[in-house]
């Protein structure tokens, strides 16, 4: 298991877990806020819809479904 931080909260996940899966696992349901202020979360799971965008280690708008968790990674949802 490895540990990442979602909005400062530690989440333990197995190796090769995507950041999107880890965010859902952490209980956080909104990944980002839409242009009109609605909470949104992963939809397509395969890098098409851009709904799972989060900030990963300071890089904004990262597609969390296509990034694997690395130990100590800091994820911030919108």
């Amino acid at each position, binding site marked *: 298991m490895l540990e990442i931080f979602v909005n400062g909260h530690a989440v333990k996940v197995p190796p090769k877990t995507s950041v999107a899966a880890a965010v*859902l696992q952490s209980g956080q349901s909104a990944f980002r806020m*839409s242009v009109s202020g609605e909470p949104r979360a992963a939809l*397509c*799971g395969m890098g*098409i819809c851009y709904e799972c965008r989060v900030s990963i280690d300071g890089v904004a708008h990262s597609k969390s*479904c296509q990034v694997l*968790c690395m130990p100590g990674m800091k994820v911030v949802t919108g």
Partner: protein
Amino acid sequence: MKHYDLIIVGAGPAGIAAARKAGGSVLVIDDNPSAGGQIWRGSEIELPCEFLSGARVIDGDARNKQITVESSGVFKLSYKKLILCTGARELFLPFPGWTLPNVFGVGGLQALAKSGLDVRGKRIVVAGSGPLLLAVAAYLKDHGAIVPVIAEQASWTSLARFGMALLQHPAKIKQAFALRRSMRYVPNSWVTKASGVGKLQNVTFQDGRVEQCDYLAIAYGFVPNTELAQLMGCRLNGAFVAVDEQQQTSVPGVYCAGEPTGLGGVDESLLEGEIAVMGNRDRSKTTHFSRALNKAFALRPELKTLAAPETIVCRCEDVTLGRLREAQSWREAKLHFRCGMGPCQGRICGPIVEHYFGWTPESVRPPVFSTKLQNLIALKETTYS
């Protein structure tokens, strides 16, 4: 600029099959962390050639036989032969509440589960249309989820006809029966509403029934990913990339295999990937299967009436159906309301707008995937310096 005899875009079944038959200098590019596409996501797949994962092809120039790739930076590659195995995405149709967190695609939720999402004890409604519903419901159940119902919009009659067409494919019948066991599979049934505060809590069906659940997995089949092929000038045949018997497109040196040429599933993709490298093979059986598939799961007209005027169609720019009704064309929808102009570039709302209004985008322009401005600047510098 680095050169390859063959570049394959997409490491799903078609791309893998092509790579395994190819010789010379070969590169496979995929935007996911590893090879396998959707169907073999999470499996350990060895490719017999160079493999660039986590990389996107953002532009292509068929005349000079070059593609532009975004990975950690951005660079150009040249090829002698290019095989596009860009797969398909799911077709989503809007209904009130479909933008709520915890409403996923069917393949979408499976992809997340294959990427480490623990579904144990989760109550998951599976809905929409197509054989994927059963396969995903079975997968979720095997991984500890509770699937109270699988709602298939197609009627019993069309499913029975599909069953008859399957008689030529005994393995597929066996598979369907094995999947169907002990699950509530309800044809003639579809979701009309998803509701909840901040996230999904309830799903409503056409007969007024309400099911409480944690997740909803819903999609209405597939849309071929033809954007890169279109950008490179490949002719389409309807929604699909037109190819000859050798999988060659209308553009010399550019081939296409798998779902972008017709939605036939994994067997057809594997075969087409091989054909793209080796030439003719017998494909009569798989073509028959995909035709039967598309007929059986044709979408019912009621699905066009689910979205309310305030229901969002373009999720990137939050454009509602009511807004779109004020437009006369895709162009107007874009210019007046920014429909399809967000980061997904109309990949999700484009097929919906086509389903509701019959409008299609007039052109595909680079970059075919959103990229950072600094990448475009870097590219310009390398091109002209």
